[in-house]
C-alpha cells in the first residue's frame, strides 16, 4: 500500500494557473495546421521503437531482466554443471556460453507479450489504432525496442562469459555474426508473444502461458548437453527444435565456423514465425 502511494507522492500537479484556453491562440493553431503526408511504414515503426526507448528511460528498472537475469543464468549453469558435464568449468563454458546466451535471450522475449498486454489495456492504444498509419507499426515498434534489450543482454552475458574464461575462436566477427543471427531469430520469435499479448485477457495469464511455452522449448534443446545421450523420441524433438538450430548456429559462428545448414534452419524458422504469428497478431490487432 505504501508503495502505491509513494508513486503518486509527487501528486497530481495542480494547474490553478490555467484559467481558460486562449480561444484566439487555439484558433490560430487549428488554422495553421497543415496535414503532412502520412509517414512511411519504416518511419512509423521506428517512431514506435523510439517510444519503447522513452519507456526505458522513464522506467529503467525494466532493464533488470536483461542485466541481472542473464548474469545469473551464466554463473549458475556454468558452475552448477561445469565440473560434472565437462570435467572443468573452463571447458564447459566454451560449450555453454553461446547456448545459454541463446536460451536467455529467447526467454527474455516473453516479456514482450506482457508489455503488449498491459499497454493494450490503456487508452493510448485506441489512439494508435485510429491513426492513419501502417497497421503493424506499433507492434513492429515494440519488437524493435526489444531488440535493443536483447543487445544489452547479449553484451552483458558475453562480458561475464569472457570474465570467467570464455574465449570465442571466431573473434569479433564470429561473435557479431552469432549475435546478429540471434537477434533476427528473436525478433521473429517475439511475434508469438505479441499474439498472446493480444489474445489473453490478463497480464498473469500471458505470463503463465509464456512459461508453458518457453521452458520446454528452451530446455529441450542442445543448450546444456549433447542430445546424443537422450532417448530417441526426445532426440527427435530436440534435433528439430528451432532453439537447437539457433544455439548450434550461434555456437559454431562464435567458434569461427560457417554452419550453413543451421543458419538456414534458423532463418527458415524465423520466416515461418513472422508469417504465421505476425499474421495472427495483426488479425487480432485489427479486431481487438
Amino acid at each position, binding site marked *: 500500500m505504501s508503495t502505491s502511494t509513494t508513486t503518486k507522492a509527487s501528486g497530481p500537479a495542480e*494547474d490553478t494557473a*490555467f484559467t481558460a484556453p486562449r480561444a484566439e491562440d*487555439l484558433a490560430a493553431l487549428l488554422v495553421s*495546421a497543415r496535414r503532412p503526408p502520412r509517414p512511411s511504414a519504416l518511419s512509423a515503426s521506428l517512431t514506435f521503437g523510439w517510444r519503447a526507448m522513452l519507456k526505458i528511460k522513464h522506467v529503467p528498472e525494466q532493464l533488470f531482466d536483461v542485466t541481472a537475469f542473464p548474469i545469473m543464468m551464466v554463473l549458475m549453469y556454468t558452475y552448477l554443471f561445469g565440473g560434472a558435464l565437462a570435467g572443468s568449468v573452463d571447458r564447459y563454458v566454451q560449450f555453454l556460453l553461446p547456448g545459454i546466451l541463446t536460451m536467455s535471450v529467447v526467454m527474455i522475449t516473453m516479456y514482450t507479450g506482457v508489455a503488449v498486454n498491459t499497454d493494450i489495456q490503456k487508452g493510448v492504444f485506441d489512439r494508435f489504432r485510429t491513426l492513419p498509419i501502417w497497421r503493424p507499426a506499433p507492434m513492429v515498434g515494440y519488437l524493435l525496442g526489444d531488440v535493443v534489450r536483447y543487445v544489452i543482454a547479449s553484451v552483458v552475458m558475453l562480458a561475464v562469459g569472457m570474465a570467467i574464461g570464455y574465449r570465442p575462436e571466431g573473434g569479433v566477427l564470429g561473435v557479431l555474426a552469432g549475435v546478429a543471427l540471434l537477434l533476427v531469430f528473436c525478433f521473429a520469435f517475439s511475434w508469438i508473444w505479441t499474439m498472446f499479448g493480444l489474445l489473453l485477457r490478463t497480464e498473469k495469464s500471458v505470463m503463465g502461458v509464456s512459461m508453458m511455452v518457453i521452458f520446454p522449448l528452451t530446455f529441450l534443446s542442445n543448450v546444456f548437453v549433447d542430445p546424443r545421450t537422450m532417448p530417441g523420441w526426445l532426440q527427435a524433438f530436440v534435433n528439430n527444435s528451432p532453439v537447437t538450430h539457433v544455439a548450434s548456429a550461434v555456437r559454431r559462428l562464435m567458434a569461427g565456423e560457417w554452419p550453413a545448414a543451421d543458419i538456414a534452419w534458423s532463418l527458415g524458422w524465423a520466416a515461418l514465425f513472422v508469417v504465421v504469428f505476425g499474421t495472427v497478431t495483426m488479425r487480432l490487432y485489427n479486431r481487438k
Partner: protein
Amino acid sequence: MTTTDTDTTSGPATDPPAIETHQLVKVFGTNRAVDGIDLRVPAGTVYGVLGPNGAGKTTAVRMLATLLRPDGGEARVFGKDVVRDADAVRARVSLTGQYASVDEDLTGAENLLLLGRLLGHGKAAARQRAAELLEAFGLADAAGRQVKNYSGGMRRRIDIAASILNTPDLLFLDEPTTGLDPRSRNQVWDIVRAVVAQGTTVLLTTQYLDEADQLAARIAVIDHGKVIAEGTKGELKASVGSGSVHVRLREAGQRPAAERVLTSVLDATVTLDPDPVALTATVDGRASELGAAEEAARALAELARAGIAVDNFALGQPSLDEVFLALTDRRTGDGRDGAGPDGRGPDGGGPDGGDGTRVDDPTERTTAR
C-alpha cells in the same frame, strides 16, 4: 427505414454528412450493446449523444472511430464506410476516449512529439507543434512531467491537444468531462467551442444533460442500444410536453385558492412546493411555446381577478433532465410505444430541413423530427 437512400442520391450535389449510420448493430455475447442505431450528423456541428451508463454510447463511438467492427448495419464518416474504407476515415477523425488516450509513462511533450511524428511531421515541425499546443493548453510548465502525474483536468487537456495535433474534420469526445471538477469541465467546454468554431464536427457523448445542453446543437438520446429520441434541444424539450409555471404568493393562506384557479385555467397538474407560498403548475408543452406563454399570462390574469396577490412568477422550459427521465421512464414503463408518433412540434425546424424526408420506425422515436 424507408429512405436513407435519399441522402446518398443527393450526394454529388452536397457534401456528405459527417456521420451517417443505418441500423448499426454491435453484439457482445447476448448483449445487444448497440441495437440498430440510425444517426445523421451534419458537418460543422456539435452533436450530442446522451445516455446513461451502459446505454451503448461508447460502443457506437468505437465503431464510428474504426476501433470496433459493426455486427450489422452500416456507418459512413464523410461518406466513407468505416469498415471498407477505414484508413480514409482514420485520416479525418480523432478520438479522445473515456480514459486518457495518451501514454501515461511519457511526458506531455513526448506524447505530442510521438504523435506528431506518427502523423507525418518532421522532427523540427513536430517539436514546434508540440510546443505550441502545450503553450495554448496551459501545459508548458508541465511539458517535462510524466502524464501519470498530471491532474484530471490536465490529462483531459493533453488528450484533446493530442486529438487536434492535426486538425481533425471530425472529433469524437467520449465523455470528455466525466470525473472532472466544475472548473476543469468549463475549460474543456471552452476548448470544444473553440475547436468547433474552426469548422471541426464534434460527436460528444455524455451522461450529463447540462453538458449536452451547453454544447450540442442536436441531441440523440440513447438507451439500451437504441435511439429513443432525436432532435434539437428545443424539439426534445417540447416533445416531453411540459413547461412549468412557478408562482410565489404573497400570503400562504391563499395557496388553496391559487391552486384551484391554476388547475381550472391551465387544465394542469399543480404541485405544492415545500415552500408554503410557492406552487408549480405543469403546462402541456406540446402546444407551442407561444401558446404556453399565453396560457401562463391568462393564468396570471385570473389569479389577479380572484384577488390573489402574486409575489413572483416564472415560466420555465423543462430541463433536459426532465426530458431524459421522461423518455427513459416511458420506455421502462410500458414497452416502447411511449408518446407515439405525436407528429406535433416544429417538424423539420432544425438547421437542415432535408432531414424531414427521413422517416424512421415510429415506435422507436418518441419525438417529432
